[in-house]
């Protein structure tokens, strides 16, 4: 269990670094979602199922959907801008 814990901690750091290292925001959102799932497993190992449930639902599910909506909204704005310039 201790090996799994440290493995998950390392993976947490790797996903957090990958989330900020890409220029494409969509990839960052996917990595944030993976980050949340790894964090859920860590909370479960540390005997906090309440927080794990909240993290799984909000971090992996809801945050991704809301970020995707914001991205699509920003891109629609940018597209509108380009077409007006043309």
């Amino acid at each position, binding site marked *: 269990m201790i090996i799994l814990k440290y493995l998950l901690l390392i993976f947490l750091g790797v996903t957090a670094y990958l989330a900020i290292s890409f220029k494409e925001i969509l990839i960052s959102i996917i990595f944030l979602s993976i980050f949340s799932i790894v964090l859920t497993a860590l909370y479960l190992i540390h005997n906090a199922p309440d927080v*794990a449930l909240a993290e799984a639902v909000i971090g992996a599910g*809801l945050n991704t959907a809301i970020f995707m909506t914001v991205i699509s*909204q920003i891109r629609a704005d940018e597209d509108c801008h380009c077409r007006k310039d043309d």
Partner: protein
Amino acid sequence: MSRIKHISIVIILAFLGLIMLLDLNKIPNQFEYANSIYHHITNNAVGETGSLNFVTAILYDYRAYDSMGESTIIFGAVSGIVLLLSRKTLPVSSHGLSFIVKRTYGMLTPFIFLFSVYIIAHGHLSPGGGFQGGVILGAISIIFSIVYGSEFDYKRYTPTTKTLLETSGALLFIGIGLIGIIYSGSFLSNLNILNSEPGSLLSAGSIPFINLGIGFKIGAGLAIIFYSMIQKTFKEEASL
């Protein structure tokens, strides 16, 4: 220049991490003190509140006033987002995803709903509670807008219905608090309405009612946030 900035950020973060790691060892071990809150809760929480899940017992009984503040924060966030983003146009979206996805999600929806109701109703027995179950309730509505297109859910459950659900959840919470003043003299005190033995579904006084109120409030609030965010997008897609 940017390289120096990166290296300095890494050094500062490593330094802060080291300080936090050293501070973590200085936190007093609460098992040592005989009169600490830890011992009080582990010894008396089942007898005082009837809830087997101590996290729920703390959130909705000992510190229920804090939870009311949190739900007020969410109410403020929903109001602000609706004020900034909402438009009075019906969202016209794409036709959603393919037939297979639609049928699969249609079959899965009752089970997701059952799971969220289970988490809300068993908040005082198993991990979870009003907040987690409510977010799953909101997620059902959000996945509907992704799979079936945003018109589907919007026409059946208008923002007025969702606002009604949210405010009724908040009123249930505050109403239980106000009944507590009449009943036993303090705001949000535990009314022993459901007082069968601890561990059964109808136990833990007023905690299940507060869970129900929080669940409806959070679920409807998150759905309102999502739908007020997509409305603008689809208006601009329609104008193209």
